[in-house]
């Protein structure tokens, strides 16, 4: 029988289960391709 403490830990592990983004490549600084520049408000603002 799984002890209650262990059961609780297993449940919390299920809740925090890493997803594929956690396993993705680490993010580091990348030299920007170009400097910030005021572009039209209609342009997409998120990559």
């Amino acid at each position, binding site marked *: 029988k799984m002890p209650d403490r262990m059961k609780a830990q297993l449940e919390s592990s299920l809740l925090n*289960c*890493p*997803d*594929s*983004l956690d*396993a*993705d*490549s680490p993010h580091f600084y990348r*030299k*920007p*391709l*170009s*400097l*910030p*520049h*005021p*572009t*039209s408000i*209609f*342009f*997409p*603002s*998120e*990559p």
Partner: protein
Amino acid sequence: FGLKALVPLIRQEDHESAQTYDSSMTLGADLSSMLHSLGIPRDSKRHKVLYTFQSPWAETSRSEVEPRFFIPESFTNIPEVLQSQSTPPCFNSVQEDHQRVALFQDETLFYLFYKHPGTVIQELTYLELRKRNWRYHKTLKAWLTKDPKMEPAVSADGLSERGSYVFFDPQRWEKCQRDFLLFYNAIM
């Protein structure tokens, strides 16, 4: 150890409680959806799936993960690419860099436009695409150009035209032809 032991597995009890075994482990489940989520088989050939394995559970495989890849040395130190000292080149001034941008093909311009918002390169690609008769649609947030094969019909009030246009779809990353009613004030 005889056949009688298998009877509880075979007789699918209607109420869960009588279920002596968790049937998902004994009789198991139809694996086709699990195999499909793994990308097996993708086509007749057998492809390796573990190199791009996102997670043991389909539910947490929310996004593609960067697979193992290798950038050959020859791809990183290309001297003088686009007359730039450093690789990859950088674009920091509209005056000096716009002629370099003219060397890119359309898809590269679209990529730079969507990938680097709010930067000089987005401005440069905008200018270059306009030069190539593409127009940016403010509400669709997509680029379109006239389908050279046919002339659109301008509306009586002169505020719009109906015709066939080529759009660049950034979701599917391809150009597609559409019949469309274009309002002149919707494009930049």
